[in-house]
Structure formats: structure tokens, C-alpha cells
């Protein structure tokens, strides 16, 4: 994924971005060329991508918490092994994404510190609790399903390192969604209580999942330039609609009811959902969701408790380097 050490473009951004360079840059984007770390890029492009990729990375890392909650209580060894593998994948995804974000010139330490200080955001969906085992099924099926919908177009994003990271992520994500749907299927074919548990989880997750696609197109603040730069290829509402159309038949197969009595199907086959409660979205984004404080506290605790490990590893590396220099001098 290239290296920040090779990144010499930063100084360029401070100067005046002459119109000729910007035009040349846009021409490359329009020609579907990929932008690489050492290429010239507008400061705003760098800033937008650093924000987006690092938020994406934070989301993967925080996303380990709601599911990690159930690893020790998974109903069978098969489910436990799968969930553990999935949570490990989320960690891996976070790490690919941090590496991609770093190519834009911000160090890993700065990115992580911004998250721990509450200055950088992560996906609001992870501020909801996982109350029952059915929530694990629903997360895989819907949260990962929505993530895939968002991430597939990102495999063609104009920024090379981000696109490459997304290709890897998407390959692995498909297992996540299938394992989630399998959990739901098992519950729905089980006892009445198990099916009720699945329905309850769907009721609680449906609307927050629709919110994952972001504000409606009319009010989205980042969309225009991101579309021009080919970071974003579909609008929030387009992706949301795709997701709903794909998901409704899956819910029907499970025999579950989407908690939207106003939902209707168009003549052209699209499922039209009711108005989304954006005040809830804003509340969660502002830090007032059910688990915001828990998630931040868990991340900070993990970071603090890992301090001695980072320090010991650095001290050991320094000692070995020192010894090698001393031996070379003899």
C-alpha cells in the first residue's frame, strides 16, 4: 500500500494550487486513472479522503465491540469459530484501511489519537447494543449487507490505495453476510421463541441500518465534490434503495416482517420505504446513542492497557539495534 515515507507531496499542498494542476488532476480522474500516493492532488481531496478512510477504519475497529460481546456466549462451537473469525476480519479490515489512510500523510498514531479524543467519527450503527444472539445474525445479514452495498463501488474509487483495500475487504465481507443470514435462517426455522427473537432483532436494527447510507441526497454535505472526484459513485439514496430492494425478498424468505407498515412496492418492482427518523440519526451522531460512551470507554481502555506492550516492543527493538551497532563497531 505504499508508504508515508515516500510521501513528498505534502509541501506542494501548502503553496498555491495552480489551476493548471487542478485541471490536469480532474482530467486524470475523468479518464478513470487511479491517483497514487505520490501524485499531486488538491489539498481538499487529500483531506476528504483522510477523513473518509480513517472513519472507515475506526468503524471496523469499533465494529468489533458489539459482536465481540457474543463470542463467549455463541450457541455452538461452529458459531463461535465463525464469529471469532469474523471479528478478526473486522480487525484486519481496520488495519488495511489505516494503512491506506496513512499514505495520505497522516501517521497511524495521529489517526488513532483523533478517534480516541472523540475528534474523528465512526459509523453510528455500532452505537446500538447487541441484546440477543439474533442481533449477531442481524448484524451479519443487514449491517454487513449494507456495508457491502457501500463498499463495492469503492473498489473503483479514484484513490488507488483505498480502492485496493476495498477489493480485499469486499472479498472477505461476503462470508460475513452469509454467516449472518444462516443464523437468521436457523432461528426462523426454530421454535416460536427463536423466531420471535429474530423478528425483535430485525425490528430494532432495520431503521438504524437504513441510516447507515447517510443523510438523504438533498441534505448530504460531502456528496458533490466526492462524486466529481469519483470517490463516490452512487448517491446515498440510490444505495439505500438498492439495499432495500435486495433485502425485502430475503426477509420474506425468512418469514420475517420489515417493521415498516407503510412500505409499498412500485409498479417497477422497487420497494418504497417510509420516512426515516433523521432526528434519531443526529442524536446518535452527536454522541447520544445507546452505547456511544461504552464504545469510546472500551477503545480508550484497550489503548491504555496496551501502552506497556508498545513501549516494551519499542524498547526491545532499540536494544537490539544498539547491540548490532556495537557488534559492528568491534
Amino acid at each position, binding site marked *: *500500500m*505504499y*508508504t*508515508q*515515507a*515516500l510521501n513528498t507531496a505534502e509541501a506542494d499542498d501548502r503553496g498555491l494550487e495552480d489551476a493548471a494542476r487542478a485541471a490536469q488532476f480532474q482530467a486524470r480522474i475523468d479518464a478513470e486513472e487511479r491517483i*497514487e500516493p*505520490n*501524485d499531486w492532488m488538491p489539498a481538499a481531496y487529500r483531506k476528504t479522503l483522510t477523513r473518509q478512510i480513517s472513519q472507515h477504519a475506526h468503524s471496523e475497529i469499533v465494529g468489533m465491540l458489539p459482536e465481540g460481546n457474543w463470542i463467549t456466549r455463541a450457541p455452538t462451537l461452529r458459531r463461535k469459530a465463525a464469529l471469532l*473469525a469474523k471479528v*478478526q*476480519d473486522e480487525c*484486519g479490515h481496520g*488495519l*488495511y484501511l489505516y*494503512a491506506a489512510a*496513512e499514505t495520505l500523510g497522516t*501517521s*497511524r*498514531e495521529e489517526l488513532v489519537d483523533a478517534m480516541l479524543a472523540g475528534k474523528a467519527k465512526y459509523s453510528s450503527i455500532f452505537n446500538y447494543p447487541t441484546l440477543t444472539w439474533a442481533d449477531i445474525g442481524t448484524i451479519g445479514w443487514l449491517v454487513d449487507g449494507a456495508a457491502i452495498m457501500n463498499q463495492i463501488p469503492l473498489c473503483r474509487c479514484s484513490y488507488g490505495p483505498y480502492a*485496493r*483495500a476495498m477489493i*480485499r475487504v469486499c472479498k*472477505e465481507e461476503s462470508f460475513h453476510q452469509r454467516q449472518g443470514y444462516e443464523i437468521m435462517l436457523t432461528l426462523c426455522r426454530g421454535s416460536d421463541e427463536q423466531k420471535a427473537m429474530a423478528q425483535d432483532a430485525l425490528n430494532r436494527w432495520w431503521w438504524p441500518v437504513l441510516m447507515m447510507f447517510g443523510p438523504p441526497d438533498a441534505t448530504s454535505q460531502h456528496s458533490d465534490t466526492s462524486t466529481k472526484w469519483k470517490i463516490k459513485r452512487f448517491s446515498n439514496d440510490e444505495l439505500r434503495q438498492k439495499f432495500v430492494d435486495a433485502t425485502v425478498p430475503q426477509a420474506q424468505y425468512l418469514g420475517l416482517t420489515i417493521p415498516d407498515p407503510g412500505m409499498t412496492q412500485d409498479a417497477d418492482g422497487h420497494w418504497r420505504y417510509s420516512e426515516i427518523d433523521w432526528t434519531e440519526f443526529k442524536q446518535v451522531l452527536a454522541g447520544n446513542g445507546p452505547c456511544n460512551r461504552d464504545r469510546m470507554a472500551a477503545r480508550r481502555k484497550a489503548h491504555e492497557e496496551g*501502552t506497556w506492550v*508498545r*513501549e516494551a*516492543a*519499542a524498547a*526491545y*527493538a532499540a536494544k*537490539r539495534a544498539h547491540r548490532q551497532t556495537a557488534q559492528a563497531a568491534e
Partner: protein
Amino acid sequence: MATPNTPLWEVFIRSRNGLAHKHVGSLHASDATMALQAARDIYTRRGEGLSIWVVPSTAITASDPADKGMMFEPAESKIYRHPTFYEVPEEVGHM
């Protein structure tokens, strides 16, 4: 006391089909041993490879994108380096 930034490593993996080591990504680790272990965990969770190289990122010298023209243009005009430049009559068959 602030811990110094952990060094960056580039990871290369050789897949089982006998191809060359290929760059797959990067990671942070304090030393080579830890970099190798982290590369195993991050980049080979699904049998992606049979051999891993980790290289300190600072050890890589890269060509400058600004020199792209100078570096690669000379090859572009030399179409006679490709087999399709040469005509072989159809009767001769595949060559």
C-alpha cells in the same frame, strides 16, 4: 512519555501457484520478527500464501511520478519489441 511512532513495513506474499512475491499491503511493527508475525495474521487468514517478505518501508526507493514520461516513454515507441510487430504467413502456422 510519548512512544515513538512504530516503523512501517511493506508486505509481500508468494501465493501457492508459484508466482513471484507480490506486494499486498503494509503494517506497523517494532522489529522484523513482529512484522513477520503481524503479516501472517493480517494478510494470510485464508491461505493466501506460502512465503512472506517484510521490508522496512524506508528501504524502498521509488520512481518519481513526475519522471513518468522520461522513465517509461522510451519503451512505448519501440513496438518492434513485441511479437505482433512481425509478419509470419498464415501457412507457416502458429509461431
